[in-house]
């Protein structure tokens, strides 16, 4: 579980007032076949050759947890058997349902959960929290070496022209 899943904050949730206990229902858990199909959908819709299974599995759990309206199982069933399909065919099948609540649930949850996963951060080259390490002041905030060091002061020549006349 990532920190985010604990916080359970995502853009699609922002409209919820959290005052109505009716909105937090818990649909039936997915069966094994549905679980496998969801994992395939995630790997095809968000393909990263460098990602292992772990982040996708954690994202799958987050999607299932976010399925308050119970659209996930039916959406997966409607996709049918994906086993014989290549990735392009699965992509086409998803394209056909991308405006449905089923796919919106998957997308809105995945863009948050998958990319808030600390293993993913490491793979992408993001270092996360830095304050407790003294920031990057002595750890490479300016270590880019393939361009010259630019001027940091403001230009000291003629002042900037703020108002330009219209040409005839």
């Amino acid at each position, binding site marked *: 579980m990532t*920190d*985010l899943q604990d*916080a359970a*904050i*995502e*853009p699609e949730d*922002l*409209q919820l*007032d959290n005052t109505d206990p009716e909105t937090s229902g818990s649909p039936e858990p997915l069966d094994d076949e549905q679980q496998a199909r969801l994992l395939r959908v995630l790997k095809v*819709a*968000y*393909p*990263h050759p*460098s990602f292992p299974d772990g982040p996708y599995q954690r994202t799958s759990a987050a999607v299932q947890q976010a399925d308050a309206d119970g659209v996930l199982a039916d959406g997966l069933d409607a996709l049918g058997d994906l086993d014989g399909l290549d990735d392009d065919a699965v*992509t086409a099948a*998803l394209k056909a349902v991308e405006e449905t609540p089923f796919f919106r649930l998957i*997308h809105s949850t*995945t863009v*948050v959960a*998958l*990319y*808030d996963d600390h293993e*993913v*951060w490491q793979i*992408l*080259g*993001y*270092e*996360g*929290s*830095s*304050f*407790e390490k*003294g*920031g*990057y*002041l002595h750890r*490479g*905030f*300016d*270590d*880019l070496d*393939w*361009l*010259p*060091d*630019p*001027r*940091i*002061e*403001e*230009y000291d*020549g003629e002042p*900037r*022209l*703020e*108002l*330009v006349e*219209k*040409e005839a």
Partner: protein
Amino acid sequence: MASIAHDDPVVVIIGSGAGGGTMAYELTRNGVPCVVLEAGRFLTPDDYENDEWAAFGQMAWLDMRTTSGTWRVAKDFPNLPAWIVKAVGGSTTHWSGATPRIMAHEFKARTTYGAVDGANLLDWPITLDDLAPWYDKAEQAIGSTHRHGRPALPANNNYKVFANGAERVGYKYYATGPYGTNAEPYDGRPASIQDGFNFQGDKNTSKWSTAVREIPRALKTGKLDLRPECHAVRITHDSTGKVDGVEYLDAAGSLHKQAARVVCVAGNSIESPRLLLMSASSLHPDGLANSSGQVGRNYMRHMTGSAYARFDQPVRMYRGETMAGIIADEAKHDPNRGFAGGYYMETLSLGPAFLASFIEPGEWGRSFTEKMDAFLNTAGMWIVGEDMPQESNRITLDDEVKDAHGLPVPHVHFDDHPNDVAMREHGYAAADAIYGAVGSTGVHHTPPYPSTHNLGTCRMSEKPEDGVVDKWGKAHDVPNLFVSDGSVMTTGAAANPTLTIVALAMRQADHILQEMSTGQL
């Protein structure tokens, strides 16, 4: 901290951000007792988190809002029109730090630009010269780099790409500021440690905010009664038309009323007009101080866009001060470009967590994941410029959707003006040129985020029929009601607004002190 009785009529300030926090300090340090009603919690730097979504969940204003209009935010983030903060310190907690001043001609937008179809342009009732002394004071309070002898911040990785590109395309007016974060210790706060988390509150306190400067100092005067988690819901007035109190809900949802001698509304440009509209009475049937019908109208959010450029080599844009890089060459009015007004380009970085949600909302598949895979080698910038005020871009009370307390939520309607669209396209092309000049292999044009710069919904005007407040930010219709935030801005100008909001609040505070000393308030 002071403890002020509910029936003691004092200055009541609604909001503790750039406007409200500044007002509270300026008045209390001059001996004027104030109550500050802040809807959010009292977060301190120890509470801030170096984690994008955790910080967002901690401090973002997530109360229900609804949207309409042609802007893409209404589709992608229908209930998050604005990305602002609900906490003591308001949106200065997550502001980026760029502090350009508004230019002289931008105060005269209607005169300079002429009539623009569909735009409700108006000249400000003040000039740059009028505001200049307070700009000086605001830059001193904020500690802007490059100003008043303060040193520049060093170049971070994202800036190196940005500034080299700028130089190669012939731009001159680039620098690492002016920027409201200490390059060296200043004003009792330390120098930046370049931790890269200034949108999440700055744990190191090197970045100015009212949460680390004005509010703590105001509390030390013993004249401030700060009430966090207290959400103002109605301003009341007496039979003579003067405001006399503010009703608010506390954390438990209980209703209270604080008597008021003066009321300063500083709830940002969505909540401020919402509060005035919710304060309608028989004397003010269309909302408090709304005889002009302009309360909530002319909502501006700045023309914005972002460009994320990929390179063959590492950038690590996330290391260091997020927005310590500004190019000002395009911040000019040049009618030959085919649009009115100008824009700045400023360095910007998002971590993978935010980038995934905002770089191209709704996108999936390999085109999306390629952008994420390139994270390490990506440089980013924000484009921010003047947008056209339109009467129909406005905040209204939603007829159907109520908040947890049964009050109407604010509805935000926004249509892009053709001038905004033309400027954005120009900005994207400029970004392509800058990054292309230093070897970018591709630049993605990211659409505007939920609004961080919310402006104009209670605008200043010379004539009462044209706007809501006068040149001091005082309501045209009510002698002791002030608006003290960015909603007073007559037009948006190109500059990031925080410096101007602080300068206007300081100027307004001086005016209020003057009026109090002469018995007029």
